[in-house]
């Protein structure tokens, strides 16, 4: 394990190593794209806007790539940390916002809100709000299905997540096909895409929500550690399980809603990243949350660079890339667990 036994040292090691990796990934993300840029050109562009030279000229870096790369970082951090928290809560390494149905739930609200044209109102906040409402509804439904005789069966939970996810997808598709909106645009967004006409607005919403959600999850990380011994033993260690479940799932849903509103469904990030981080830095939820957030940010920034750089000027939806990488890993964990 990197950083030895002490939690504090492992946290520091994770922050230093992965912080550096994130900086590097962001640099790669900024340099990748249809228009070639030198490092000097990138820095000059950013400097000009930060210092406010007043020209107001449109630029590739400031207006397009920088917000997009930062958005990828925020979404990657949120989804990966959300996956880590859900896995800790459910005691199952296969849980993540996508597999437990949260993402699909959020899609319904967000796409309905978009098809009604609500994204132009109230600075765009109505989309994540709508996403949160349906995401929470989906998760409540999954819980209701998985609760048997007062106990939450983990395998039923995952299965219910998939069923509820499909249900919400079907409703979404139905509503969209019945609407007259620009369906092609919404479907592209659904498949997971960071292409946005107004990336700074989405980034502004997303990072605030993610900051709240991530801080909240870190607050509950010690309780999640106790959950590793099971719900009953966690209670006997002083955790109120029902309260913890409500908070963690609420925070993950909140963060996921903002991510989905900005970039549609990006699956498997919350699965792959915590799996790897647990191997590198151990299973303590505090190091796991911090390392997953940073590594998730790296992963999505690089995946986005790949999406833009593989066949320019065309873009591959980023959700396609994460699914292509994530699905085999999901399968590998599933078969090794024998679950």
């Amino acid at each position: 394990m990197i950083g030895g036994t002490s939690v504090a040292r492992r946290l520091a090691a994770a922050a230093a190593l992965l912080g550096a990796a994130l900086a590097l990934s962001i640099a790669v993300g900024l340099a990748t794209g249809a228009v070639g840029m030198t490092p000097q050109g990138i820095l000059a562009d950013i400097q000009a806007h930060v210092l406010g030279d007043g020209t107001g000229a449109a630029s590739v870096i400031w207006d397009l790539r920088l917000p997009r790369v930062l958005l990828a970082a925020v979404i990657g951090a949120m989804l990966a940390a959300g996956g880590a928290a859900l896995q800790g809560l459910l005691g199952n390494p296969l849980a993540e916002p996508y597999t437990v149905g949260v993402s699909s739930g959020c899609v319904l609200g967000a796409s309905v809100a978009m098809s009604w044209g609500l994204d132009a109102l109230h600075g765009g906040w109505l989309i994540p709000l709508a996403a949160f409402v349906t995401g929470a509804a989906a998760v409540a439904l999954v819980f209701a299905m998985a609760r048997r005789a007062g106990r939450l069966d983990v395998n039923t939970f995952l299965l219910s997540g998939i069923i509820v996810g499909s249900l919400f997808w079907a409703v979404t598709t139905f509503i969209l096909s019945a609407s007259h909106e620009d369906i092609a645009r919404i479907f592209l967004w659904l498949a997971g895409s960071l292409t946005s006409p107004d990336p700074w607005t989405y980034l502004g919403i997303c990072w605030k929500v993610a900051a709240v959600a991530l801080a909240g999850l870190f607050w509950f990380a010690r309780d999640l550690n106790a959950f590793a011994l099971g719900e009953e033993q966690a209670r006997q260690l002083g955790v109120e399980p029902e309260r913890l479940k409500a908070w963690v799932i609420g925070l993950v849903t909140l963060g996921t809603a903002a991510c989905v509103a900005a970039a549609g469904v990006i699956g498997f990030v919350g699965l792959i990243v915590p799996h790897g981080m647990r191997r590198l830095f151990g299973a303590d939820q505090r190091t796991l949350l911090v390392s997953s957030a940073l590594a998730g940010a790296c992963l999505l920034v690089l995946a986005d660079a790949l999406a833009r750089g593989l066949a320019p000027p065309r873009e591959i939806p980023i959700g396609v890339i994460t699914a292509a990488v994530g699905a085999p890993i999901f399968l590998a964990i599933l078969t090794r667990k024998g679950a």
Partner: protein
Amino acid sequence: MSDLLTIERVTAGYSPGRPVLREISLSVKRGEFVGVAGPNGSGKSTLVRVASRSLRPWEGRALLDGRDVWSLGAREFARRTAVVPQETYVPFDLSALETVLLGRHPHAGPLHLENAADENAAIEALDAVGAAGLARRSIREISGGERQRVIVAKALMQEPALLLLDEPTAHLDVAHQMEVLSLVSRLAKERELTVVAVLHDLNLAAAWCQRIVVMHGGQIAADGAPNDVITEPMIAHVWQARMWVKRHPATGRPFLLPAPPPFEPEDPRNGHGLRVHVICGGGSGGPALSALMDAGWSVTCGVVNVGDSDEEMCRAMNIPHVAEAPFCPVSPERASANLRLATEADAVVLTAFCVGPGNLDNLRTALAAMEAGRRVIYLRGTDEQTADFTGGEGAALLAKIRERAAEAASVDELRAKIAERAA
């Protein structure tokens, strides 16, 4: 001593209308080591769940130090009570050290990062349970017994006054069962812990607990010191099982042995109404007596001294027998009673026992029965079992008997020989 844990008229269960505990009341004093025993489904674990604030009673209260456990917050309760479950499944690779550190959970705030002091305390706790060497190992890859010790160390880290154990040894082999219980009992003494342990195995409960509470149908069937509680009638009543209760020679505590299966009096394969007399003593007769009873024959026995395990066996199995006072030589009256039983029987079994002046008469009786035309079968034993302390007279008598008697090397052969003759 004051009561630490009080269960007050508690009724509790999991589905409405089907209470598992019915108006149960119990109090545990500070420093006591109480075992809770009972058949499956009698409510033992439910009692622990009520006491551990995991299950809210429908009626009544569980009090810790005079305060309702539900009026204490989960954290406050966890600082006073630790629970060791049957088994712990951990989905991720936490190290043993990290697992033990979880015991600090109720004592520290959400943003507390464990420091060197916490780690030293955890290593001490691991050391106390003899698992210091496991600190860096994953909780998932150590054995069940080791994991249980780590969980006990975690419980110690909570610095509790009350330790609740819910069948802590259910999934362990015999060696680890002993190990975990002797560990808990030592720690309880050292740290003045009060322990309430659900123990499936009555022998373990009797060996380790000062007090045993027996549950039956959601109520308390017996409560007291092991020797008062563990009795054959109580076990027959609560468990519906035929067990023999003996005293452990080293500790004086009761322990249980399964009673031989009930015999079938009319088993036609074995011949009807066959009578067999067994001449034994010094504990040599047990296997033959139970095998013959099991065959469904009517068995008699003699002469055995009161206090001898053969005599206890006869009483336990209702075998008519001739008994002599403890450590006394066989008196002429007893000898003739013995001979009468022997000559009335269809066959006489002589077991291998040590011969001294006191029981020499048993060999004479066997010889007399043989001379009176009874069939005598000698059940062979080892040389040790047949040592002669009479200066040769016993050995000579035995040799004379064995010249003409049939012999069997095992109880099965013995039964076969008796049955073949009868048929």
